């Protein structure tokens, strides 16, 4: 398969920002993910070709970084912070509520393709724990009620 012209141009732009264009390996994966939601084997191989690295080199990178998705994800990815400040302020209750109300475990996607639930390292929102990120939005001071209200905003 081939990447779209938009993807190829975005990757080439990233390649121009580094002394060695291979440095854009991670950026290329991010570009593909931005356009397709996740990175399939085929898209990864096509991106490797643009950057000029082998598919194996690109896969080594793709499997290392947790913000690169190697499986399809829902329209909105929920990342619940599981680090210490949120742990102390109610992470477990937020986790249990998210899991039961969405009917999925960490790593799962709801049947309607609306949400994927993932744990994430400290989000840097520690003064408002427990905290999560939905898409690009930060939400803090989570309670089961607040979680319900927040999730209705994401269709």
């Amino acid at each position, binding site marked *: 398969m081939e990447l779209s012209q938009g993807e190829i141009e975005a990757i080439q732009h990233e390649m121009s*920002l*580094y*002394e*060695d264009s*291979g*440095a*854009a*390996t*991670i*950026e290329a*994966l*991010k570009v593909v993910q931005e356009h397709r939601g996740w990175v399939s084997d085929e898209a990864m191989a096509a991106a490797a070709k643009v*950057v000029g*690295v082998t598919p194996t080199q690109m896969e*080594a*990178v793709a499997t*290392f*970084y*947790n*913000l*690169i998705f190697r499986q399809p994800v829902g329209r909105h990815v929920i*990342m619940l912070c*599981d*680090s*210490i*400040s949120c*742990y*102390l*302020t109610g992470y477990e209750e937020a986790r249990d509520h998210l899991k039961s109300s969405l009917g999925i475990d960490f790593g799962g996607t709801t049947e309607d393709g609306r949400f994927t639930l993932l744990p*994430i*390292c*400290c*989000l*840097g*929102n*520690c*003064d*408002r*724990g427990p905290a999560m*990120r939905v898409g*690009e939005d*930060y939400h803090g001071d989570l309670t089961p009620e607040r979680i319900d209200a927040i999730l209705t905003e994401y269709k």
Partner: protein
Amino acid sequence: MEETKVLTQRIRPDRSPVFIDDYMAEGGYEALKTALSDFGPTEVGPLIKEAGLRGRGGAGFPTGVKWSFMPRFEERPDERPAHVYLVVNADEMEPGTFKDRMIMEGDPHQLIEGMIIAAYAIGADIAYVFIRGEYVECQRRLQRAIDEAHEKGFLGKDILGSGFNLQLYLHMSAGRYICGEESALLSALEGRRAVPRHKPPFPAASGLFGQPTTVNNVETICNVPHIVKNGAEWYKGLGLNKDGGTKLFGASGHVAKPGLAEFPLGVKLGDVLEHFGGIRHGRQLKGLLPGGGSTPFLTPEHLDTPMDYDGVGAAGSRLGTATMIVFDDQTPIVGVLKNLEHFYAQESCGWCTPCRDGLPWVEKMLIGLEEGRGQPGDIELLDLHVKLLGPGKTFCAHAPGAMGPLEAGLKYYREELAALIPDDAKTLSLTESANANPL
């Protein structure tokens, strides 16, 4: 206690960003003009060294000394490599740390101005901000600030007619805590797995793409314009003890008013805690991590500790990022330790065996203790891990960082941990143990 606002002087109460017009109206980019007109390229570093600025990312290495390791090419321009790099570490992922995010979102030009001066001081022609992928708002605001700085002629070619050139780019990370380790960060920036590198050579000798490179933390760099503008003596005078300057302090966890504040280095731990409202719900302090997840616990007996590099060191911990994580007397220590060690086990890059295999074992033992499946000898086995995963036993500082709170936990809360082992518990064989305690 009143705050001493240097780095946060322009931060608005609602955290809305200060962009170019407001930044310049409040004295922004004056320090850059001063640096370029009154200082030679080799004269800024000694000023920073004289001021006593130490790295704010956690390690506390003197910034001016770090800069002095960079090779100079003024006398031998023919030998100048293709590029010399400044990299700002904005990969803020230390558990409980949220300080760099605030100053990048609230005052992005302060970082840009500091970076331009720092690049001038080390002779860099390309600078990157390596920023964690989740900090999308920081990225947007910094990108706008970079564009504004270009328009004003503070970035690009022949900056303010000085002959100094600098290109500045943002690099959004794709995750993983280990990217905060400076040599792993350089691997990530080169598009590889973020595996730490052997030192020596240090980045100043062979860093990004094998070229001379300095890596500094966001908050460290934000101090630079203020030192250039006000001088080393002024800066040293800000600190209450030996260390110069102010520090962003934070508190999260069981404090009544979690948040961030700026105080002189050397302020008493108890006063910082009081600023954040003390312990919430009328409870008592049990312990705290003074500067992120890898700093050993301090306890109520340490409330008089001066919060500077030497003071916290003398109390058996590290100042770290100075964003403290506080827990009350109702908190089982085993849960705190389990949460911390889970983080470190998960975030090990997997390169060296003690870290890759030792940390999950530690986590597994802590889960066993928490769930009432502890075995005689577990405490001693945890002690052994503190030794085997400690400084000098691993490729980088990740596992030793993970052992900091574990060692302090075994010291301060030993009886509480030992009491978790059931009285009738037997030591299982390895097979039985693995079956009883899968991870």
